């Protein structure tokens, strides 16, 4: 008994899913009584989560939907979604992972923290509590938390909605003793047997010796007590952060256009920033998905020319990008996925001789591409081919560009090339230099034999013209 230390912390968020939905609502909408319903057996849907307004209106957890709607006729009802809540629980773990390394998910609404080592780091429960409280303010949830000398002790207290944070095991024991047997987490049959002999609280159970209880109620109860007292700890599976970011947000009402999604997008990007900041990572692309009622989701992939991690930057670029997009159907949900993550210092110590890339240049490229399209910036490139129109191409700007092949300096080439050679009237042109015969391409479908000249037209412009079996053509200009 004397070696007991309160080394566990349990956070219980009984309204996890609803609180998340409330956070996405406007102020006046939040004030409306709202509940989440779940089908339970054959008795019809019952209230599983409710907001403060519903509570004041007299609605309670476990109440049948019929009763609830009779109490509050304009009650907003939605279905409880288990999977969604599991996602949220992971997100919550993700958030708290910034402060606590050992977190075990306790579905559907709990998180267990092993804090023994952290107490040393923070210098006691008070400092730790302050840090976690601050962190939890980022999550828009109502929660209860309790410390304990065993995972079970902390869990029972938190789930009973008794918030007891204390370094003193005596305080925990005292609080546990107050709990009714119904809050013990034991099977209903075991609870009944205890109640039958007049044990109505956990306290009455804790007073008795293990052996006496074991003799009377069997091995299960002694196991239970060992677990509660911390004499026996079942192994915990601790949360590991995912290697990618995925976050989905319920819009709660249909949203018709991208600009109206900005509010939701802001929140998602804020979470992305937290995720990236916590790992010192950045990203160059993200994938937005808008989910519709019946149609397949609309996917928008947004590329950045430079690595970003701040919400402000990402939002600005996303907004520019989305200006070009049309939302084909109203959206119900929005998600962001980021798969490719990179270390922030990755480029500083890269061994490859990457062309010196100023951050400002990359940021400019990102902005231009976001508003004008991914292929907005075209860069001329020299290609190893004799045929003039194949000796060059306009390629989309990219980070690492191949070095240009060496050029024969004696060749006279114009600075302008017409995308398509234009037929010309030979009599309008004075030939000044030439011909240069360019002949090749027998290995592909477009063989060509052309004699190129530099010639001057009636306006005194210097053109690059050629003659081939089809006639005379203008192909480029020299200035």
């Amino acid at each position: 008994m004397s070696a007991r230390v309160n080394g566990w912390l349990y956070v219980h968020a009984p309204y996890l899913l609803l609180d998340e939905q409330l956070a996405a609502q406007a102020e006046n909408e939040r004030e409306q009584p709202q509940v989440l319903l779940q089908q339970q057996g054959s008795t019809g849907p019952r209230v599983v989560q409710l907001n403060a307004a519903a509570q004041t209106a007299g609605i309670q957890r476990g109440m049948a939907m019929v009763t609830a709607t009779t109490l509050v006729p304009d009650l907003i009802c939605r279905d409880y979604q288990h999977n969604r809540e599991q996602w949220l629980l992971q997100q919550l773990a993700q958030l708290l992972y910034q402060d606590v390394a050992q977190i075990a998910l306790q579905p559907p609404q709990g998180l267990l923290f092993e804090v023994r080592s952290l107490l040393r780091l923070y210098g006691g429960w008070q400092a730790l509590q302050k840090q976690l409280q601050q962190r939890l303010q980022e999550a828009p949830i109502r929660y209860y938390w309790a410390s304990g000398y065993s995972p079970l002790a902390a869990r029972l207290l938190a789930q009973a909605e008794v918030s007891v944070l204390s370094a003193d095991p005596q305080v925990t024991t005292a609080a546990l003793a107050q709990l009714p047997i119904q809050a013990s987490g034991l099977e209903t049959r075991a609870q009944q047997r205890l109640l039958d002999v007049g044990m109505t609280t956990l306290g009455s159970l804790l007073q008795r010796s293990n052996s006496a209880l074991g003799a009377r109620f069997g091995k299960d109860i002694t196991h239970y007590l060992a677990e509660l007292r911390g004499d026996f700890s079942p192994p915990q599976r601790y949360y590991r952060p995912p290697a990618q970011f995925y976050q989905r947000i319920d819009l709660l009402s249909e949203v018709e256009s991208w600009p109206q999604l900005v509010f939701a997008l802001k929140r998602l990007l804020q979470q992305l920033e937290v995720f990236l900041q916590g790992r010192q990572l950045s990203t160059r692309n993200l994938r937005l998905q808008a989910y519709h009622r019946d149609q397949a989701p609309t996917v928008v992939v947004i590329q950045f020319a430079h690595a970003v991690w701040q919400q402000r930057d990402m939002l600005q670029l996303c907004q520019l990008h989305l200006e070009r997009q049309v939302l084909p159907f109203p959206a119900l949900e929005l998600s962001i996925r980021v798969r490719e993550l990179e270390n922030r210092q990755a480029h500083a110590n890269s061994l490859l001789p990457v062309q010196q890339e100023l951050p400002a240049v990359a940021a400019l490229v990102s902005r231009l591409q976001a508003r004008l399209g991914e292929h907005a910036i075209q860069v001329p490139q020299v290609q190893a081919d004799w045929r003039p129109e194949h000796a060059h191409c306009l390629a989309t700007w990219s980070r690492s560009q191949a070095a240009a092949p060496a050029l024969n300096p004696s060749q006279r080439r114009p600075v302008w090339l017409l995308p398509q050679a234009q037929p010309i009237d030979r009599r309008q042109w004075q030939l000044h230099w030439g011909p240069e015969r360019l002949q090749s391409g027998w290995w592909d479908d477009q063989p060509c034999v052309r004699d190129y000249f530099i010639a001057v037209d009636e306006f005194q412009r210097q053109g690059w013209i050629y003659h081939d079996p089809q006639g005379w053509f203008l192909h480029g200009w020299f200035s």
Partner: protein
Amino acid sequence: MVATATNLQQLVQKGWVWQGQQTPLQKTSTDFLDSGWPELNAQLGGGWLRGSVNEIQIEVGFRGELGLVLPLLQRSNERPHVWVNPPAQPYAPGLQSQGLVPQQQWCIQEADHTKALWAIEQCIQSQSVGLILAWLPQLNAAQVRRLQQVTEQAQQLVFIFTDCQQEPEARAYVNRLRLHWQDELQIEVLKRRFGWPLPPFPCALQRLLPERRLVKKSAHNNTSHAVTGTTRLTL
């Protein structure tokens, strides 16, 4: 007397007083970028003014307007130069033979006028690019004023190539030049920051371009017929 001197200073700063010297009073030579053409430098007070939007009016395209800015493009290959709505493709081998790095020439084709101007402004503001060359229809007064303001703040250099206007309305460009051709390229200064407009004067652009054969005007037609497909002309 003091009051008069201050008034004069104000007038000088507004650019309303013609100054009989090469470099205007309140500007030092570092405020100007050598255009590569001594005759043009002399007329513009030392070269292109840093932080200026310059208009180049052209009678017909492809007759020297790119040559005019080639010395500037050649001078800096570290930063990308931006070409907005170029009238044809900048041809990589040709750029190379003029000493330019093709990869550093960014081409942006944007049919939407507003978006094109937005892109130009972004490039100016980012301060990470070299020259900004844009081929655009005539801009209105507000657009030019805005571009000039941003350009001056960012100390960039912008060239707008546009059609000739018979009677140009006032615009906030620092320099407005019109290109003509009379045996060689002629530059007419319609407006400059420090001085009056100037009649056309020649610019030795030909040194950057393939040599021309001197053809007597009267012999124009005959000569062109004298060249046949396989005759190699050396020059």
